[in-house]
């Protein structure tokens, strides 16, 4: 035991004497949560559009004013013809163009119908779809107003309550997501690199030749990273809570316990990577190139998993982050107890056991 503690102390020295890494380790989550919390949102606001009003009469102006007044759209760029619109699209200046046909008011009055064209830049299909949807809704409302001036247009209304996240804040999704990515990074990447580093510089041989058994060497390696990762998670939770108002509705001890479980899982993944990698570069490529994009994309952090095609939904099952995000959201935003996510918890435990098992099998006391 005394040997183990002094070995752990050695690892802490390694980390603490490197002031820069320490600074990055704690500065990074703070900067990232502040940046993303404020900057990243999927709400449409001021989407640049071009308005090509070929009729320019009183009704068409009221319609286009209404579109602009909604706050979703911002007119940008002069378009006199469809050719101009195409040029604006090519320059990337606008996302959508609203084309009002000639003699708009006249046709509405005398023929009972006139048309508006919405041309959307569908190179970003999600954005195009949303913009067209929003604009259509505004135009439909305008039509109701035209037909029934003064009357309340809707007879069956809906009283909508936005459960769990009343102001539709993107940060509610980002805090759990960011914690997950950070823990994955600090734990998996740092352990794998620091073990690979001992191999690369040759000091691993010294450690293995010492009276310590390999298990103790590894435990001593991961304990400091465990505490650092845990601290990072707490920092992000506090920032989320006090800067952005992301609540923790459920039990805090339970949340912390689940965070610890996830860290242990990520640490054992890091150990597994380091049994394969001989150099820091390989460890880095495996843990960064292999984990970064899948963790961001397939965990449900940004893209909802239910929307993915079936094969991808199946693949997403092997992304540990996916399960952890479900747990975090359940505790933080829904405030429910372990009864709702015991399955996810068991899966994380399963991952941990699997990674440790494979690492032990692959571990070589003798080096190349």
């Amino acid at each position, binding site marked *: 035991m005394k040997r183990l503690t002094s070995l752990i102390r050695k690892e802490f020295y390694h980390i603490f004497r490197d002031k820069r890494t320490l600074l990055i380790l704690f500065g990074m989550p703070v900067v990232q949560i502040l940046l993303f919390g404020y900057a990243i949102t999927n709400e449409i606001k001021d989407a640049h559009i071009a308005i090509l009003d070929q009729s320019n009469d009183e009704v068409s102006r009221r319609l286009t004013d209404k579109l602009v007044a909604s706050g979703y759209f911002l007119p940008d760029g002069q378009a006199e013809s469809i050719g101009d619109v195409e040029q604006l699209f090519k320059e990337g200046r606008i996302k959508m163009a609203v084309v009002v046909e000639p003699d708009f008011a006249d046709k509405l009055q005398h023929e009972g119908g006139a048309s508006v064209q919405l041309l959307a830049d569908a190179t970003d299909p999600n954005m195009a779809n949303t913009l067209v949807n929003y604009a259509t809704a505004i135009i439909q409302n305008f039509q109701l107003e035209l037909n029934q001036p003064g009357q309340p247009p809707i007879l069956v209304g809906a*009283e909508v309550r936005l459960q769990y996240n009343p102001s539709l804040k993107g940060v509610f999704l980002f805090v759990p997501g960011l914690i997950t990515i950070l823990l994955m990074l600090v734990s998996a990447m740092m352990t794998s690199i620091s073990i690979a580093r001992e191999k690369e510089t040759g000091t691993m041989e010294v450690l293995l030749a010492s009276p310590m058994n390999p298990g103790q060497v590894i435990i001593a390696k991961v304990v400091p990273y465990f505490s650092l990762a845990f601290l990072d998670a707490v920092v992000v939770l506090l920032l989320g809570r006090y800067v952005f108002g992301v609540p923790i509705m459920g039990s805090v001890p339970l949340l912390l316990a689940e965070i610890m479980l996830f860290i242990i899982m990520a640490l054992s993944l890091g150990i597994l990577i380091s049994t394969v990698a001989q150099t820091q570069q390989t460890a880095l490529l495996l843990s960064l190139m292999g984990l970064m994009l899948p963790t961001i994309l397939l965990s449900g952090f940004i893209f909802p998993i239910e929307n993915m095609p079936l094969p991808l939904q199946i693949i997403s099952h092997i992304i540990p982050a996916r399960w952890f995000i479900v747990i975090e959201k359940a505790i933080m935003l829904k405030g429910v107890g372990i009864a709702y996510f015991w399955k996810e918890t068991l899966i994380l435990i399963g991952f941990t056991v699997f990674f440790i098992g494979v690492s032990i099998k692959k571990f070589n006391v003798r080096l190349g």
Partner: protein
Amino acid sequence: MRIILYLIQKEFLQIFRNKTNLPILFVMPVLQLIVLSYAADFEIKNLKVYWMDNDQSSASRQLYRDLMASGYFTIAGTGFDHAEAAAALDKNEADLVVEIPAGMEKKLVRKEPQQLQVIVNAIDGTKAGLANYYFGRILGDYNQREVAALQMRVVAGGQPTARQVINVESSFWFNPELNYKTFMVPGILVLLVTMIGAFLSSMNIVREKEIGTIEQINVTPIQKYQFVIGKLLPFWLLGLMVLSIGLIVAKVVFNIPFVGSVGLIYAFSAVYLLLILGFGLLISTLTDTQQQAMFLAWFFLVVFILMGGLFTAIENMPGWAQTITLFNPIRYFIEFVRLVMLKGAGWQETRFFFAVIFAYALLLNGLAILNYKKTA
């Protein structure tokens, strides 16, 4: 010149003798490109509704049919108990709960406005917004059609007034089928090429520092710029190779249209890679260990990736954040690739991008060369 060639030869030997790195460098990006491009579908379908119909009338059943016929909603369950509905939301079994008030049909006939209760799971703001929007649209149609008809029947002889209809026609340019893969594949390819370039180059010089071999190079007559070029070129070629493989995959597997000129894309990528490698080299000269270098690179890349305009539109960000994205190289590459590949923009429209990237590349590489001192 001969010195540079020898340095390049040395770098290539180091890259190729590591048998684990090579498959990672070439196979992983291709695999990820193929798999991850399917992930990013924001089109929300199959929203799960928990239906509480306290009216059980033909009017409420018609609304239910309209909802299901729209294709956006599926049924998660029906019932009358609020606790059960709340549990369905908690367990993620339902995305929204709709409750019809008792006596709705009768009261509508008497022209009393009715309120439905709708509870939406809003953790995912985008999804909740769309669910809300779709539901509102269906309800709007329902109002115009059914409710009007219902009241018309009662007020016998009620004269329908002449209606003015605005037809909204929408057309989606450059991607009429709204295929999100045309959007994602080039974007993810950009991310992968950037990651490979930045990570490899940022770990490179610092590795020589850490192992100590940099001292051996420092005592040779090799000039600073020769050393840096020798470091840059192999990764530059590697990056272009990965890009080429990615473009082939985009064409063959995903059938992404190449409206613009492939030559222009290569010309831009060549400059862009210089920028990314310069960025990596700068990190490499600023740090002492590979761990530090990797951390810094990771930090910047996560910011670049999440603020690059691929996952969330830059227009939606607040002004100061949009200003920050002006320093984000990924932003320029993603915009450029979309402009050229999908919209067929040419040199005329993209000059600005070339200018920015070129200036940026000069700046970063210049800083990296200045910063690399030949003293240990």
